[in-house]
């Protein structure tokens, strides 16, 4: 048990690169787009016009440390 953390764990399957790459690209792009929307949009740059989104996530944006306004 004590040495379990440092020994190779045979039963842990390694994800093949061929399987990982499409997921990493598509999910990665979607997730980063979400991050952009909640963290930055309608601040210095805008994909959506107006400031509804900015105002709605205002507190989260400030408290998470993103530049808000």
């Amino acid at each position: 048990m004590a040495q379990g953390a440092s020994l190779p764990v045979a039963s842990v399957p390694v994800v093949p690169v061929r399987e990982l790459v499409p997921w990493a690209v598509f999910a990665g792009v979607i997730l980063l787009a979400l991050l952009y929307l909640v963290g930055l949009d309608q601040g210095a740059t805008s994909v959506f016009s107006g400031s509804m989104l900015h105002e709605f996530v205002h507190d989260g944006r400030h408290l998470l440390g993103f530049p808000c306004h």
Partner: protein
Amino acid sequence: MVRTLLVRGMIAGVVAAVLAFAFAWLFGEPALDGGIAYEGALAAAAGETGGEELVSRGVQSTVGLLVALLIYGIVVGGVLALVYAGVQGRLLRLAPRATAGVLALIGYVVVVLVPFLKYPSNPPASSADDTIGLRSGTFVFMLLLSVVAAVVAVAVGRRLVERFGTWNGVLAGAAVYVVLVGVVAALLPVVSETPADFPAVVLYNFRVATLGIHAVLWTAVGLLFGLFVTRGLRSSERPSAGAGVG
């Protein structure tokens, strides 16, 4: 396989975001209100009346905050799962929950703590509105370069581990990261625009709250994702020597 990991990561992110919301509501909102009170005092002194609110403070501080944290948590959980899928068994040969914990800790340092040290969070009314472009650009740049520095440090550290052993190699890799982000932080422009009479306690509490919210969120994501991965292995794969796993 990747799909399962991704879903588990995002579920961990949702739960972590709810915990972070509780922390943010208790410790972050009072400080944020302090900034808004300062803003209101300035406006009153200038004889301005408050403009029409698009979203009320009541919504911003509850539903808005929760939704923002949920999305952030889902992103963190999802990306953590993808990185986990990439490094587990390759770069890191630890038990699943140990890998998840190590990745969450590194993520907190690289994505939150280091960018924060250069460009800390600011409560409302503590920064100049017309510098939002500069502040957004430099913040994103600091964040991206911190991630790049971490990737370089891992690549270098990996070779050093092979040559000088785990302890020395990991320490040297960490040193590479510290030097790289140190240089980046020294070169990026300084943003110093907090009004002279902005309440120091509000600023301090607000920034500590930011670190606290992220600490809650990233800790919960790492531990929960590790738990879900370990559980999943036990129920679906059921290795014969299950006691050693996790």
